[in-house]
Each structure stands twice: as structure tokens, then as C-alpha cells.
């Protein structure tokens, strides 16, 4: 039986939420941008008026202002976006329990089982579109098709506040002339590879011989060909499905570039600070780490290494990450961003072989120290205790840097 899959995409989500919260912005060009002071000053979302001026997601604030001098720059309000996203999902959940989020503002819905009661895919899509508009004041674009890939493609085809149906009996006429990069999974690099093979459209991808695609792109090539032929059979996961955690990461763009190994080591320790509690809450230990570094020219590199033994102790993780950083980073440019991830997670109960020279006593001591700090933080707040090396980290973003405690006596403001 053919399935009925919907893909709902909330149009210009962040900017639309800001406009619906403050209707006086509706007739103005609006861009939601990160903090310039924290060096996140890029356009995260824009409304259609700003788009008409050529403002693009990813533009810096000054670029957006050059293109559109009257643009209104709004700060992001992530809690608000989460709230609206949850409200939209609550509406979707009245029709199906198979809801798979794709980011904060997109969802796939499998409505196959409610076709008899609520109508065909197009009817349900129109109901959802009207309800979201009426109840939340936002617009959505909905793609309706018989698989997830085409449903996603459909929601991109007509915006805003629209429904696009890609039926099984006429999908070739409807989408095979579209550029190949409109298909989910075809990014800039894949698109360039396909162009090298003379493939510009979805139809050309669908007809390309398997051997050619496999030779050039491996299994990804044949999978994309399946997508182009409407043969994607992936399921829409249930809304209560919990994805297994494969890694945990923490990254920061610093207020000021880091210029030496000492500051980098402290920053890495800070990034690893919460790994202990996060790993313990998942009952996991990490067998490896991954380190991502971006310099102030926005060039980046990523390295991985194995930990000497599976661990959840932040100090051990930070020490290994620092060693990796010092051995790999050549200081051609100052560092703008560092991200540390713990990878290859295993159950904390899984036995492992201790090395002859591993300092197990010290590891146990550090684990106890981290647990004690976690208890204190849970009881008295995040800032109650921290390593002395975290004092006066001027390059950390607002709210993350600790300053020295004020001395006693009178203070002058």
C-alpha cells in the first residue's frame, strides 16, 4: 500500500515568530541575528521583505545592513522558538503519532492511517496549514507524497503558506526537470560531483547507470538514484522514539581569538566541564575524542584520537584533547572556535583492560571530585564552584567567564 507522507516546513521560522510576537514588524524587513559581541553576528533567519533586498541566511550583520539599510535586527529568542515548535507538533500529534522532527521547524508526518477519517493527504495538509496559521499566527509549506524524500522536496517547491502534492503516478513529469541539488542529500559537493558526470537534473540522476554512480560516489550515489526514482522506503519514526546517543559535544566561538597553548588548554577544560555529568546521566563512557578547530580566517580542521581507557572523567578527556590540540595545531593563525566531542560511547558497565602504567587511583580521585562538584552545582547553582584556571577568561562569551570574587569591604559602583 502506498503511504501518505507529509513534510511540514515552518516558513522563515525565527523571523516569523518575531513578527507574530510583534506585529509592528510585519511590514518591515527583519533579520534575526546572533550576537555581534559574541562573534555570532550572522543572519540566522529573515522575512520575505528582507529576502527581497537580497539578504541571505549566513550574511554578516554588516552585509545585511549594506543590502538593506532599514533592516530591523532582532535578537534570537530560542525558548520562544522551542515553544512555538512544540505547539506546532502538538497540532500535528492530533492526526498521527508518527512525527519525525527534522530540525526545530520541520517535521515529517506519516498520515497513512488517518486517510479514512481525516481525508487524503492534500486535505490533511490544508487543515494543518490553516490551523497553524489561525492558532499560532505562522505559515507553513507542506509537501505531500508517498515517501519522505519527495514530501520534503514538495515543501520546498512552493512557499509560503502552500501545499504541493507529488503523486506516485505523475512524479516524473512533476520533478524530474528540477535541478538535482533540490533533492535531500545533494549538497554543494555532491552537486559538483554529479555535474562532473553530466547530471544536472533529478531525471538525469534517475536514469544514470548504477556502475557510473557507484564508481564515482560509492553507495551514496546509488542511494541518491533510488531517491530520484521514488524508491525511498525509510519510515517516519514515532514521536516518542529516542535516538541512541552516539556522541556528546561542546563548542564555542570565543569573544577574542586564542593565541597560545595555555589559553587553549583552559578553554578545552571549560568545554569538557559538563561531559562527566552528561555521560553519567546516559550511563556511558567515552572511548575517543574529536577536536574541531577553526582559525580566524574561518579555515577549520578536525582530528580524532582514542582515549587511553574508556572514561567519563572531564579532566582525563580535557587532558587528552589538549595533548591532541598541542600536537596538531601549528599556530599559523589564532583560534576562533574550538569544539570537543566525546565519541565511540560504550556502556559504563562494559569491562575493559587497564594498562600496566595507568594511574587508576588518580582516575578514581578525579571522578569523585567531579561528582562532588556536580552535587554542589545542582544544589547551589552552576557558578558555585569551578577550577581556579577558569578565572578571568576574557575570551569566553558573556555568562561563561568567571571573574575574581570581589574583595571584602566597601565597593564602589
Amino acid at each position: 500500500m502506498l503511504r501518505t507522507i507529509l513534510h511540514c516546513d515552518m516558513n522563515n521560522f525565527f523571523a516569523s515568530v518575531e513578527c507574530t510576537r510583534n506585529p509592528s514588524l510585519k511590514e518591515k524587513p527583519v533579520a534575526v541575528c546572533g550576537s555581534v559581541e559574541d562573534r555570532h553576528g550572522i543572519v540566522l533567519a529573515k522575512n520575505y521583505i528582507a529576502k527581497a533586498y537580497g539578504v541571505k541566511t549566513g550574511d554578516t550583520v554588516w552585509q545585511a545592513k549594506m543590502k538593506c539599510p532599514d533592516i530591523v535586527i532582532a535578537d534570537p529568542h530560542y525558548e520562544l522558538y522551542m515553544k512555538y515548535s512544540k505547539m506546532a507538533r502538538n497540532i500535528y500529534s492530533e492526526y498521527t503519532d508518527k512525527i519525525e522532527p527534522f530540525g526545530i521547524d520541520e517535521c515529517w508526518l506519516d498520515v497513512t492511517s488517518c486517510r479514512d477519517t481525516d481525508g487524503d493527504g492534500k486535505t490533511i495538509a490544508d487543515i494543518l496549514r490553516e490551523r497553524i496559521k489561525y492558532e499560532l499566527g505562522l505559515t507553513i509549506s507542506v509537501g505531500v507524497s508517498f515517501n519522505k524524500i519527495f514530501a520534503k522536496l514538495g515543501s520546498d517547491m512552493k512557499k509560503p503558506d502552500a501545499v504541493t502534492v507529488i503523486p506516485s503516478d505523475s512524479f516524473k513529469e512533476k520533478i524530474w526537470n528540477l535541478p538535482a541539488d533540490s533533492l535531500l542529500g545533494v549538497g554543494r559537493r555532491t552537486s559538483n560531483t554529479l555535474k562532473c558526470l553530466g547530471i544536472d537534473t533529478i531525471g538525469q540522476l534517475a536514469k544514470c547507470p548504477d556502475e557510473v554512480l557507484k564508481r564515482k560516489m560509492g553507495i551514496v550515489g546509488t542511494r541518491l538514484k533510488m531517491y530520484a526514482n521514488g524508491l525511498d522506503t525509510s519510515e517516519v519514526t514515532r514521536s516518542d522514539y529516542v535516538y541512541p546517543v552516539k556522541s556528546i559535544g561542546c563548542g564555542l566561538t570565543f569573544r577574542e581569538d586564542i593565541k597560545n597553548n595555555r589559553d587553549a588548554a583552559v578553554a578545552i577544560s571549560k568545554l569538557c566541564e559538563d561531559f562527566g555529568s552528561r555521560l553519567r546521566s546516559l550511563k556511558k563512557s567515552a572511548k575517543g575524542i574529536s577536536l574541531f578547530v577553526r582559525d580566524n580566517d574561518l579555515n577549520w580542521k578536525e582530528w580524532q584520537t582514542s582515549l587511553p581507557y574508556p572514561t567519563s572523567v572531564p579532566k582525563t578527556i580535557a587532558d587528552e584533547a589538549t595533548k591532541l590540540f598541542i600536537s596538531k595545531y601549528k599556530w599559523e593563525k589564532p583560534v576562533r572556535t574550538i569544539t570537543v566531542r566525546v565519541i565511540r560511547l560504550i556502556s559504563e558497565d562494559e569491562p575493559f583492560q587497564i594498562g600496566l602504567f595507568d594511574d587508576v587511583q588518580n582516575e578514581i580521585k578525579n571522578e569523585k571530585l567531579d561528582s562532588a562538584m556536580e552535587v554542589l552545582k545542582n544544589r547551589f547553582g552552576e557558578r558555585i564552584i569551578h577550577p581556579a584556571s577558569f578565572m578571568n577568561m576574557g575570551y569566553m562569551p558573556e555568562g561563561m567567564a568567571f571573574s575574581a570574587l570581589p574583595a571584602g569591604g566597601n565597593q564602589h559602583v
Partner: protein
Amino acid sequence: MSQKIYVRVNASFSPEGVVLPRSFIWTDGHQYKIDRILDARMAASKRVGGCGMRYTISVGGKDSYIFREDDRWFMELKETSC
């Protein structure tokens, strides 16, 4: 332009969890009794922004909206030009 006015509300809470506004205190400090609730549904306020449970209420023979957004209540002040 309309204005979003947060108001103090007296409400009844049924054992089933149904919340109904009974009276509110307007910006002039006067307490207005809600005579009837004509409708209740989730809706967005197009005039002043925000969304939540929207009650269509009758106060002194006039119909108006009052919204419950999270834990706060607001009404729409319609500004008229002279």
C-alpha cells in the same frame, strides 16, 4: 495600532482542569465581571501578537477577547484615532 495589555484575572479551575476567566481588572483599576464566555479556542492575536487559549467574552453587553498565554492573561486595546 493596538496594544497588548496584560491584566489581572480571577478565574475558576474545575476538577477536570478547565480554566475559565470570571472577572478582570482593566488599566483604569476597575474590576469588570465577565457575563458570559461565548467561545474558547486556541488562536493567535493578529492585532497585538502572541497566541494561546482565546476566550470570547461578553462584558456589559460588549464582546471582547481575552487570551491566556502560558501563565499570563492579556487583552487587545484597540486604539481609535480622533
